[in-house]
């Protein structure tokens, strides 16, 4: 598979005073409140925080699934807040890949068909689709199980399939929302190793939401802490960076 990496040190995403507010009855909920930071190409960023801290909402905003109430999110030189819904769909299709906690594979489709889905949406030719699906499944070591359906796989295998699906369109940024949340610790670790391998192998930018600090500290290069919708802290993962420097 030919990667389309976010070139190192280029800006992959830039958030400028991003807020996402909801109204629930009479009360206003500030799910994300005035958050600003920049993510460079090739970074492995972990968004940490307790439940309701706004990390998943922020991930959805960065992935183009939602629009900010105010502020700007710059990706590929464009402000996502100003894109039309069609342009946002193209951004999700071509620039980003998504991995979910509950895998979100379509149960009636085989592994190969699930992985092929983004290529269908991108109107890639059938011949090329077959090649790219095979490559993606080979990368996650599921090339022997292409005809299986999700229900016939373990949780770890399903998540690996979801990662293959996220990679198949060769995105620059991979968003992972609690990718190990539904897995046991050993399987979770293998998934994290796979993500790490992809990040280093393809030079891809990975932004992962997790509430498991040990996992974040073990794999991410940068830790961003959220609390009550606000950015609490943002810094390099000392454990990783010191490990790298040693």
């Amino acid at each position: 598979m030919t990667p389309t990496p976010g070139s190192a040190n280029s800006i992959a995403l830039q958030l400028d005073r991003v807020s996402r507010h909801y109204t629930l009855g009479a009360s206003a909920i500030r799910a994300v409140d005035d958050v600003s930071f920049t993510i460079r190409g090739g970074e492995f960023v972990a968004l940490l925080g307790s439940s309701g801290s706004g990390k998943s909402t922020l991930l959805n905003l960065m992935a183009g699934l939602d629009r900010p109430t105010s502020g700007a999110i710059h990706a590929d030189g464009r402000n996502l807040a100003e894109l039309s819904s069609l342009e946002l769909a193209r951004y999700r299709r071509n620039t980003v890949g998504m991995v979910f906690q509950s895998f979100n594979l379509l149960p009636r489709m085989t592994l190969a068909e699930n992985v092929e889905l983004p290529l269908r949406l991108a109107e890639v030719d059938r011949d090329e689709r077959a090649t790219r699906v095979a490559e993606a499944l080979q990368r996650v070591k599921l090339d022997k199980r292409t005809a299986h359906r999700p229900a016939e796989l373990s949780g770890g295998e399903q998540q690996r399939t979801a990662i293959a699906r996220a990679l198949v369109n060769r995105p620059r940024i991979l968003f992972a929302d609690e990718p190990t949340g539904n897995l046991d610790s050993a399987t979770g670790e293998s998934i994290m190793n796979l993500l790490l391998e992809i990040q280093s192998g393809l030079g891809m930018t990975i932004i992962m939401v997790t509430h498991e600090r040990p996992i974040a500290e073990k794999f991410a290069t940068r830790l961003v802490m959220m609390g009550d919708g606000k950015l609490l802290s943002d810094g390099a993962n000392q454990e990783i960076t010191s490990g790298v420097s040693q």
Partner: protein
Amino acid sequence: MKLRDMTELAVRNLREALFRNSLTTLGVAVGVASLVAMLSLGVGLQNLASNRLTKSGLFDSVFVTPKLNMRGGPPSTAVQQPETRLLDEDARREISKLPNVIEVFPQIRFPTEVRFAEKPYPTVVAGMPLSSKQSGAFDGMKGTFFSGENANEAILQIEFAKELSKETDSLVGKSLSIRYAERQQLADSSGGFSIIPKEKQLQIIGVVETEPASGFGGFGNGRLLIPIGVAQSLRAAQVNDLRDVVRGGAATKQTYASLTVRAKTTANVDDIEAAVKKMGFGAFSLLDASKSLKIFFRVLDLLLGLFASLALAVATLGIVNTLVMAILERRREIGVLKALGAADSDVKRLFFVEAGVMGLIGGIAGVILGWLIGRALTLATNIYLKRQELPGVEISSVPLWLVLFGIGFAIAVSLVAGLYPASRAAKLNPVEALRYE
């Protein structure tokens, strides 16, 4: 997403809830079936009526009479002619030279008494030109058509044949004699004539189920058909003979009670009719009646179609219900599709295609079902007619346009039914859809 991929996904989705989608599709099929069955009856009855009338040779013909006939009444045209023209051989030749006229032949009909198996059977004889074979009226007849214009042969209309024998097929090859009144010119110069009873032997060569000599002139529908040459040679007394006598001196010249002018197509009938009237004769055709008949059947089709469409309207509610249920069930899937890059229009088109596929399958099944209903009705009608000793008929017909219309209408209605669910699915917020359990 490309249409092929979209269709594959849609069919896969439909197969997921097979039972529910089959019931919905069945609803569409029943709606289309009722529409097709109703319209096929309309078309079938129209064909039945127009075929019978066409085969009678009435619609491509203009009937010419002398302007002043025995019935009196006002002239058939407002244009005043200087003098009354005789409908004689000169007139016949003149009319036959008009453009788009195939032939002009006199209508010769006279009452007769048929002698068969030593029993008398009163009926009407009609002289038929050899060209009448091409009208289609003799298609499917038992036996053969006239061998020549002067052959002493007779073809029996089936209703009359049944009077002669229950086994109508067995009549072919047998002989009968007809007794008729021959007009014989008196030797003096009075212009009068005698009526002499005569008899003629004929061989039965065929039995025809249609009525090739129905319509106008003479003494009503001809039920014993003979070649026109033979009919002319018999010089049988005609309805215009009395008029010829009172006309005086001109009575020595043979005239015709009426002439039938056959046009190349029904489109030429109006022009020929006008030209004949201009020549000073009375002329009329049944084309106007045929137009009224067409309007009647169009209105009938419309009403039948409207009633049948009600069933299809109910079926569309089923499609709306099924697709709305599908949205609820596949909310998360829609969220996944959007997260993977599906645009709102992709989601909308996916549901549209699903509705369209249900319409297509329902339409095809409905057309087949409607055709079967039509066949069953035809079968039941023919069983009834057979018991009444009447010939069978085709009361339903599913032409290609009805097949295409049935399927097309089903797809169109299904797409309309898919409008609301498709736009509802397209508007789903992907974040909320992904959160849905």
